[in-house]
């Protein structure tokens, strides 16, 4: 193995059920249900998944949901905006912790 991440491994995801099939079945049923059209469209859900994939930095998910977004009718500008949403939340999450830093500073400083 030359790298921990191999694009071909994405197709092997289903094999994760070989050891503990019941949990795997429940997970994939749930997963499939989550992405079906509900109050949100399949296109909107794929865009959310793409943004989350970037936030959790999962290359498999980025690959899968880039394809899914295009095939559900999102364009590159919309997908790029979704990635910016992930970026803003990740960046904002770091920055907002600056409040903790400031609180501690205030507490221990004269």
């Amino acid at each position, binding site marked *: 193995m030359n790298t921990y991440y191999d694009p071909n491994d994405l197709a092997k995801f289903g094999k994760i059920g070989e050891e503990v099939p019941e949990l795997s079945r429940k997970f994939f049923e749930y997963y499939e249900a989550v992405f079906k059209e509900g109050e949100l469209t*399949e296109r909107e859900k794929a865009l959310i998944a793409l943004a989350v994939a970037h936030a959790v930095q999962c290359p498999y998910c980025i690959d899968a949901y880039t394809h899914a977004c*295009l*095939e559900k*009718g999102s*364009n*590159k500008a919309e997908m790029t905006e979704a990635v910016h949403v992930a970026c803003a939340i990740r960046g904002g999450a770091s920055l907002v912790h600056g409040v903790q830093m400031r609180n501690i500073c205030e507490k221990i400083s004269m």
Partner: protein
Amino acid sequence: MAENVFQTALAGSNLQLNRDHTTTLQINVGRLCNLSCKHCHVDAGPGRQEVMGRETMEAVIGFARRNSFTTIDITGGAPEMMPGITSFLERLAPLTQRLMIRSNLVVLLERGKDDLLELCCRLRVAIVASLPSTNRSQADGQRGQGVWEQSISMLKKLNGLGYGQKGTGLELYLVANPAGAFLPVDQCTAERKFKSDLAGKWGIEFTGLFTFANVPLGRFRTWLERSGNLDAYTDKLVDSFNPATVAGLMCKKLISVSWDGFLYDCDFNLAAGVPYTGTPIHVADAGAIVPGTPIMTGVYCFACTAGSGFT
């Protein structure tokens, strides 16, 4: 002989692909085009010399007269660039209930094309125009730099002439092929989004939208090979085989004629050089298209049966 994996897939679902009653005549007038789109399955472009001549046009008109086609669909290349296109349209119009012309939109901006547009309005010719995306970079990426801007401009002009407007009888359809090696969006979803985007941002209206998968032939196949996408794209088409699409495939009701007058089951067999019945038949010699005739197939047929299919 190599296995025809498409026939194997049909057999695996207990299906056969044979002709129904043929209602549509598709005329591919040639490979000359002002654009060189990356997804083009006939490899059309500015340098191509293959264009339908007068003699073949006469033979095609005779064939249309001998048969009864409810729809005649003119494609290319860019049909607008064929010498004699106006008289061809005038003579075909009385022979069918519905005459359609495929357009890349951009070619209609060229000088001298206003007369053709006026004729299309007068004959109530439906315009079927390519627009892969409402996103500029994706549209230009597929069709060439600046094409998106010009396409929007021509769509506005067509709306001004009444095309795509309710109550005018002038139909304007859009065709959205994916701008890459991925499957098309579900047609209803895509139509909703295009209508919302085009009306909201540019005030453009249209009659309806078709989404078609890109077929791995011609320039698109070359692009797939060069970009390292051919195997994955082919696998995706094969894996997405949907037996439910077979009964409604357009090749069951359509016969295609090439610029030099030979018959094919569809424009993709035409691009692949696989003639109707397997033996070249010239339109001048062709009789009726017989229901039940087996349709020729190749691995590229999976593009028409993927997902919701090409019907």
